């Protein structure tokens, strides 16, 4: 971690305040006044518009291999994604992927 302690605390506190402001946006601030439908429509896609972007480079260019694509990690990623899609259970998917990665790395060695 390249950050100073002050920077880390800044991140934590501002992320907390920012998240609270988002949560309270309508309950306390905007209230019951109507909002343009297109705004609500775009908000629906925020999470699915950012998480795939976060994960794609992590999977294709893993830090552990110095950014080189890696078979074991690629297969573990596919297994995790397939389990998540099928079961809709985050914990089962992560565990399944971790076991796959462990087995794959053991086979490669």
């Amino acid at each position, binding site marked *: 971690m390249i950050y100073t302690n002050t920077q880390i605390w800044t991140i934590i506190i501002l992320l907390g305040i920012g998240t609270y402001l988002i*949560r309270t946006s309508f309950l306390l601030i905007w209230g019951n006044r109507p909002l343009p439908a297109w705004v609500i429509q775009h908000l629906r896609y925020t999470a699915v518009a950012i998480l795939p972007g976060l994960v794609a480079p992590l999977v294709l260019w893993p830090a552990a291999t110095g950014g080189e694509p890696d078979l074991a990690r690629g297969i573990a990623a596919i297994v995790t994604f397939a389990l998540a899609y099928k079961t809709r259970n985050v914990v089962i998917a992560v565990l399944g992927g971790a076991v796959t990665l462990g087995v794959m790395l053991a086979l490669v060695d």
Partner: protein
Amino acid sequence: MTSSTAKSDFWRGFGDGMPFVLGAGPFGLLFAVLATEAGLDVYQVIVMSLLVIAGAAQFAALSQMQDAAPVAMVLMAGLAVNMRMAMYSAALTPHLKDAPFWHRAWAAYILVDNSYAVGIVEFEENPDTTWQTKIQYYLGCALPVWIVWYIATFVGAFVGQAIPASIPIDFAVALTFLALVGPMLRTLPHVAAAFVSAAGTLMLWTLPYNSGLMVAAILAMIVGVQVENWVARRT
């Protein structure tokens, strides 16, 4: 008038919120272990979970930090993941608008995916109950996940310290994101948005300060909405 009391409303909500503990417990544990391994100290991990209570956003910030992104980009990534909560806040407001200020302030703090999902189903089935009934129910359904989230983070932060650095958990953050994205791909517009997000970020990787992620996210939202409109026109 039904004979429901504040206490029974609370416990009805509590029962409906209980199953989500099974997801929140391990997820909080995983976050705390990985954040500790990444170099945050125990207090930082615990305070983050107390203030933010949003696993996906905490993981988003963590992965940007591991990537040595500028502080502003770490914050934008975390907050972007949480923007969906503005939609939850808007959906709950018609039901809770008559509650006093501090009740609504409290309700906002514990607004997470689970409390929104359980609460809104109840409120839409029984729209004519009083704000007291609604807020008691909502508090009840949020409480199990909320308490378990704190405990899991607390335990995970200490477990993380005890795990030797030799165990390879470098890929766990990536697997966690994949596990979060899988269930989100419910409809064609969601799939299209996810594709643009992933492909766009990879193609825009060379933009400075990790800003390709944000550019791709905005494009992905627009594509999601456009595909949704297109699907609606066809049917």
